[in-house]
C-alpha cells in the first residue's frame, strides 16, 4: 500500500478544505435562515391567522416561515441545540417558562420602544408582574389560556363538572383523559398546596413530599383514566369520537370544539386551576431581528387580529377590545363567570428549576406505574 505523504502545501490545503467542510453546516444554516425578506417563527397551530400572514407578506414583502411546535420543552431543546446560530427569529414561550429560557440566554430582551402598537395589549397582561424579569420585558403577550375541566354536556352535568373529583370518580371510569404534567400542579392545588411550588422554595423536602403525594394520587387513580395525552388535537379527537366524557384540557382546544357546535362546556372547578399567557419572543442572536420587530408590531396593530387569533385557536386574546369582534358564541366559549375566575391563579416561574426537577421524574413514574 502506498504511504500517505503530505507536503506542507498539500497539508495546508487539506486542512483548509476540512475546516470549510466542518464549518459549513452552521454557516449554511445561518445564511439559509437569513434570507433578505424573511421572518422565521416557531409557534402553535393557528397562532398566526392565515389572513394576517397573507396581508403582512403582501404589504411588507417579508416572507413568514412558520414551524409548528406543540410543547414548550421541545421548543427549548430545539433552540438550545441551535444556539448561538438559531434559525428562528420569533418563538412562542409561555410566560411561566420565561426564566428557563432567559437563564440560558436563549431569549433577547424585548425592545418595546420599537413596537409602536405595544399599547394595544391589555395592561393587565403587558404590565403584570410576571412579564418583567431583571427589569426587562421578554415577550409580547398574545393569548391567554387556562387549565380547565371540559365535559360533554350530553353526558356530564355542570354541577358534576364543578369539582376535579368527578374526573377521578368511578362513575366516569375509562371515560377521562388528562395531561399528567399539567395535572400534577392541579392535584397539588386540589390538595391545598401551592402547585407553583413558590411557597416551598426554601423547603425542598416539603416540596418533594408534596410532589410525591400528588404522584401517588395519580398512580392510585390510574385505572380510571382512559388516556394520558399530550396535544390539544388529541383531546379534541377523543371528545368527537366520544372516547371520553370529560377531561382536563386547555381552554383553547375546548373552545374551538364549542364554536364548531360540539356539545361541550368547560369550567374552572371549585378547587381552582391555573392560567398562563403565551407570548411572542425574539430569540437571542435571531438572524432577522428587524423583520421580527416589523412582524411583532404588525400583529399587535389591531384588535381584529387579536380576535382572529382567538377565533382560530380558541384561546383568549390579550388585546384591548378584541372581544368586540367575536360572535356571541365565541364570546361565550372564551369567557368564564367571575366566581370561577376567582379560583384561577397564574402559573409562576420562580420555582421552575425545583418544580421541574421534581415533577418530571414523577410524571415518568406515573406513566410507568
Amino acid at each position, binding site marked *: 500500500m502506498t504511504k500517505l505523504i503530505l507536503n506542507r502545501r498539500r497539508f495546508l490545503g487539506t486542512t483548509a478544505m476540512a475546516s470549510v467542510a466542518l464549518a459549513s453546516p452552521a454557516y449554511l444554516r445561518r445564511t439559509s435562515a437569513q434570507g433578505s425578506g424573511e421572518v422565521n417563527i416557531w409557534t402553535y397551530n393557528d397562532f398566526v391567522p392565515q389572513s394576517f400572514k397573507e396581508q403582512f407578506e403582501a404589504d411588507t414583502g417579508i416572507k413568514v416561515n412558520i414551524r409548528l411546535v406543540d410543547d414548550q*420543552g421541545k421548543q427549548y431543546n430545539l433552540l*438550545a441545540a441551535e*444556539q448561538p446560530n438559531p434559525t428562528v427569529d420569533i418563538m412562542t414561550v409561555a410566560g411561566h417558562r420565561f426564566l*428557563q429560557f432567559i437563564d440560558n440566554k436563549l431569549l433577547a430582551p424585548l425592545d418595546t420602544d420599537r413596537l409602536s402598537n405595544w399599547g394595544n395589549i391589555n395592561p393587565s397582561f403587558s404590565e403584570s408582574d410576571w412579564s418583567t424579569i431583571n427589569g426587562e420585558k421578554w415577550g409580547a403577550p398574545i393569548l391567554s389560556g387556562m387549565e380547565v375541566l371540559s365535559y360533554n354536556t350530553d353526558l356530564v352535568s355542570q354541577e358534576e363538572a364543578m369539582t376535579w373529583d368527578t374526573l377521578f370518580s368511578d362513575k366516569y371510569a375509562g371515560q377521562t383523559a388528562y395531561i399528567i404534567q399539567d395535572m400534577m400542579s392541579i392535584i397539588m392545588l386540589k390538595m391545598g398546596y401551592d402547585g407553583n411550588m413558590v411557597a416551598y422554595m426554601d423547603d425542598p423536602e416539603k416540596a418533594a413530599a408534596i410532589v410525591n403525594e400528588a404522584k401517588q394520587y395519580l398512580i392510585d387513580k390510574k385505572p380510571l383514566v382512559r388516556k394520558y395525552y*399530550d396535544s390539544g388535537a388529541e383531546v379534541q379527537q377523543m371528545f368527537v*369520537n366520544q372516547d371520553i366524557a370529560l377531561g382536563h384540557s386547555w381552554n383553547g382546544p375546548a373552545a374551538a370544539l364549542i364554536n364548531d357546535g360540539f356539545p361541550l362546556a368547560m369550567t374552572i372547578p371549585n378547587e381552582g386551576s391555573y392560567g398562563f399567557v403565551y407570548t411572542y419572543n425574539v430569540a437571542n442572536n435571531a438572524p432577522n431581528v428587524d423583520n421580527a420587530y416589523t412582524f411583532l408590531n404588525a400583529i399587535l396593530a389591531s384588535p381584529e387580529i387579536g380576535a382572529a387569533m382567538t377565533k382560530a385557536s380558541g384561546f383568549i386574546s390579550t388585546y384591548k377590545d378584541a372581544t368586540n369582534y367575536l360572535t356571541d358564541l365565541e364570546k361565550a366559549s372564551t369567557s368564564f363567570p367571575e366566581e370561577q375566575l376567582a379560583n384561577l391563579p397564574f402559573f409562576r416561574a420562580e420555582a421552575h428549576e425545583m418544580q421541574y426537577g421534581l415533577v418530571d421524574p414523577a410524571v415518568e413514574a406515573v406513566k*410507568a406505574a
Partner: protein
Amino acid sequence: MTYDASVQKDGDDSTTSGGSRPFWGRVVNWRPYQGLVAIVTVSPRRQFFILVAFPVLWLLTQHLGPMLQMLHVSLLDAYPVAPGTAHTFTFDNYMRFLGDRIFWQPFFRTLTFAAVFTFCTLIITYPVAYFLARHVSRKNRMLMLLLLLIPFWVGEIVRTYAIMILLGNTGAVNQVLKWVGLIDRPIPFMYTSFSMGVGIVYLTALYMLLPLYSALEKLPKSYNEAAADLGAGAWTRFRRVTLPLTLEGISSGCTLVFLISTGFYATPVLLGGPSTTVFAETIAGFFHVAGDEWPTGAAFAVIMFAGALAITGVFQRLMKALRKGDTA
C-alpha cells in the same frame, strides 16, 4: 485489462464525421472526463477505494453516524447546553436506569409486547404467505402481492389513524356490532394493549410477509408430494417438511418485526392507553422535557438498542440450532 486507444480513436472519428455523436460519446471524449477517468483508473486499488468510498460514506453518515452521536451524547452530563457551558463525560445516565426501578417496567413491557406482537404477526401472516406462494397461480401472484402492499403506500401515521377510525367508540367496528345487534354500548377498543397490538401487527405485517413468501416460494412442491406418497397427512407434511424448510424466512421475518416493534413510538402514543407506556415513550419524554435530559434519553436509547440486539442474537442462535437439528 488492456485498452486499444487506436480502435477507440477510429471509432470517435467516424462519429465526429457523422456530425451526430451521441451524448455518451461526447462525454467520453470530454477532456475533464478523460482526466477524471485517468485519475480514477490509475490502479485497481484506487478503483476499489473509490467504489467502496460511497457505500462506506453512506453507512457512516446515515447509519453509524447518528448512532455514534447518540452514544456520545449518552456519556455527557448535559446536552444541549447553553453556549459557553462546558460538559464532562459520565456514566450516570446509564446508572439512572439501573438504579431506578420505575424505568424497568416500560423497558420489559416493551420487550414483552414486541415478542407477543411478533408472534401474532407470524401466526397471522404465515397462512397468507402460504396461500400466496402455494395456491395462487404464478401470473396472479404479483397482482395479489401488490394488492396486499396497497396500505403500505401511505405512511405509518396515516395507517395508525385508519386503525383509530376503525376501533374508536364511533368507529366502523363498533358501528357494525351495534347494527348487527351484538352490543348496545360501544366496546372501548381504543387506548388499550389490544388497539396498540392491532396497530403494530398491521404496520409490521409486510416485514413478516415478504421473507415468509420468499421462503415458501422457494420450497419445491415435490417435497410435499413425496411426503404425501409416503403416507404423511397434511399436518405432518406441514410440521415435518414445510415448517422446517421455512425456518429461515420465519427467522428473518421475526427479527425484522421484533426490532421494528421495540422502536415504535407514534403508534403506542396514538393507540395505546395509560397502561401500555412503552420504553420509546419514556425515551421521548427525556428529549421533550426542557432541560439537560437528552443524555439520559440517549443512554436509555442505547440500552433499548442493546437489549433488543441481545434478544435478537439469542433468537437467531435458537433458530440456527433448530435448523441444524432438522437437517441433522
